[in-house]
């Protein structure tokens, strides 16, 4: 920068002319990026190496923030509950991701069938749950799950069968995943449906002339061609899984089977706000963010060649 303020040579002037305008245009976005992304991330990184420690000794010594090196990372990685939370997240993800994408793809393909009646109504009906805020959806499902308010249990008891408690034991994973599936299918369906609509219809006509059934067309033409959209929705679903918080946190008051550390983000919230350990929460957040990044890159690498024909 100082070079530019010296008596400008021709080369310098050319550099300034080349960079001046683009930089000016980048400035607003750059400012926002630095203020609301780079600085907070940097601060979280900084916090993750700090910690509250007692100074002065005595039973009521003051806690003060000091440099603690890698202590928080060691604590995060050796916390069995954080690891167990990742395990629970994996079970949840194995249920939620394939079912969400499977339902979304099925609905999208069905809606894309020719000569379909009531398409607009069905599309809206499938999409509407996505418009219901997550907390509201969870409360709604929570009351459907609770044994004393559940209509399912009411019917089961009337016909002489015992009620089912879907908020405990292995059923819990399905119950939590179900809320996410219910809310997520519509959104993913729209993305896949839009992508299906982008496929030139000549392809279908040609296939039909060759004697392909609607099933063949769906399986051999439509699904391979919406591959990129499937990867995109898969990536969203995966990141969404790693960020699960709202559903289990909202259901927690309704069942003792959901601990405060049920999923990693709940552990992070507990550490930051219930236990006043912001630094540990920052370290866990950094680790989780890096983990998400690594998993996303692996997913993209694995699927890229197949769906985008290599690049």
């Amino acid at each position: 920068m100082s070079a530019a303020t010296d008596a400008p040579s021709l080369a310098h002037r050319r550099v300034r002319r080349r960079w001046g305008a683009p930089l000016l245009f980048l400035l607003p976005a750059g400012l926002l990026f630095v203020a609301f992304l780079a600085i907070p991330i940097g601060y979280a990184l900084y916090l993750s190496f700090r910690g509250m420690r007692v100074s002065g000794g005595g039973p009521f010594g003051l806690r003060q923030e000091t440099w603690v090196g890698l202590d928080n990372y060691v604590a995060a990685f050796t916390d069995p509950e954080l690891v167990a939370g990742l395990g629970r997240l994996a079970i949840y993800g194995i249920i939620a991701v394939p079912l969400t994408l499977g339902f979304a793809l099925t609905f999208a393909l069905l809606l894309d069938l020719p000569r379909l009646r009531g398409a607009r109504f069905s599309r809206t009906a499938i999409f509407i749950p996505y418009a219901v805020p997550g907390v509201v959806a969870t409360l709604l499902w929570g009351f459907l799950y609770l044994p004393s308010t559940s209509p399912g249990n009411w019917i089961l008891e009337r016909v002489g069968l015992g009620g089912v408690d879907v908020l405990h034991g292995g059923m819990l994973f399905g119950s939590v995943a179900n809320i996410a599936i219910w809310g997520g299918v519509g959104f993913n369906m729209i993305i896949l449906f839009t992508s299906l609509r982008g496929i030139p219809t000549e392809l279908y006509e040609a296939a039909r002339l060759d004697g392909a059934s609607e099933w063949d067309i769906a399986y051999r033409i439509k699904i391979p061609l919406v591959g990129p959209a499937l990867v995109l929705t898969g990536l969203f679903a995966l990141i969404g899984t790693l960020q699960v918080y709202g559903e289990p946190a909202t259901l927690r008051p309704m069942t003792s089977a959901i601990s405060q550390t049920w999923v990693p983000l709940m552990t992070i919230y507990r550490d930051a706000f219930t236990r006043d350990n912001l630094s540990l929460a920052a370290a866990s957040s950094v680790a989780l963010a890096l983990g998400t990044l690594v998993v996303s890159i692996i997913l993209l690498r694995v699927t890229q060649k197949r769906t985008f024909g290599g690049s």
Partner: protein
Amino acid sequence: MMRRTAPVITALSAVALTLAACSSGSGSGGAEPDDGGPITLDYWAWGTAQQPMVDAWNAAHPDIQVKRTDAGGGTDSSAKLVTATRAENAPDVALVEYNTLPAMIVAGVAQDITEYSNGLESEFAPGVWSQATFDDATYGVPQDAGPQALTYNKARFDELGIDVPKTWDEFAEAAEKVHEADPDTYLTTFPPDGFGGVAAFAQQAGGQWWSVDGDAWTVDFDDDASVAVADYWQDLVDRDLVSAEPLLTPEWNAKVNDGEILSWPAGLWAAGVLYGVAEQSAGDWAMAPLPQWEEGDSAVAFEGGSALVVTTSAEHPEAAAEFARWMGTAEEAHAIQIEQGQYPASLAGQELTLESEPPLLMPKQKDYWETAAEIARTTIPEISWGPNVNVASSAYQDAMSKAVADGTPLRDALTAVEAEVVDDMKTTGFEVTQK
């Protein structure tokens, strides 16, 4: 490489300049002019009783005006206080639960107000006063107290022919009798996340989870008394004589309303809480002293209750302390408190309850306040809470819920909580002895 870094540096320095400009601009609204006008105090407190009390103070004290903010219940509010203190914008005065007060001291939130507390000690029973005094320094003015009692559904007790249990043995027998008479009905609940309740049961039995010895803390969650309490509830849970579920869920509220859960051993505030969730059953209820471990004993511990602290951010600590004292000891304040269903911490306030109507949940129990006063007189003094009750309570909730769900021993859950509490205290740098 050089070509690329130069513009980045340019952009960054531009950002830095802009940010510097922003921050210097925002600093101008600070420091209040000290022109002798009325002092304004910020006060954080939850609950229905606070605003009318603050209004009464403001009417009587034109020079010190108080603005109250509801920053959430005890747990939320104290978490926010810690953050606000670090940002140096905490309110001047705040309501803090007794069991979080030590945490507020080590976090630098609560200020030592010994110099403004002349004659305050005599206003309170020793058990209450000890909740706000540490190492001979006063950190708060007690406002309300929650000695444990047994709030029970008298109508259902009479219907099933159950006598009010005086000991925990009788309580277990009653639980058996209730469940035999009506398999859908339970005498009470064992909430797996009920840290405060079990802490108080353990204290009643003689347990002392945290204690201070010189410069060091002693932590003992699984002493004989606490283990006996855990084993007692274990037996009731194992025999399905109590309902092991969280409190105050829609499910639980419905059962209370339907007379399927017949009692709640908890702080005296239980009457107000139950009235809020089971109003239809009001009139069926009554309150009795908590069952004892040995017949003839009368020891009872606190569950809940809170004090007003003056924060380290307070600009006018003397005025803040004056307000805190008024809130905890003025007759006008007590009258409002009682009307709103709080049990006052001060002796004068407790005296005043005797002239009041019983709470809305038990309008027929004319001796409610006499019984309450008797219970308050027998609270255990010198209960100390540790500097990380938040960690203990969150660890307890998870460990106990897991033990109840998996059918593992409850006493082991206490040991697990102790390990987590000690670990946290050691990491923070306290000197700790684990028993």
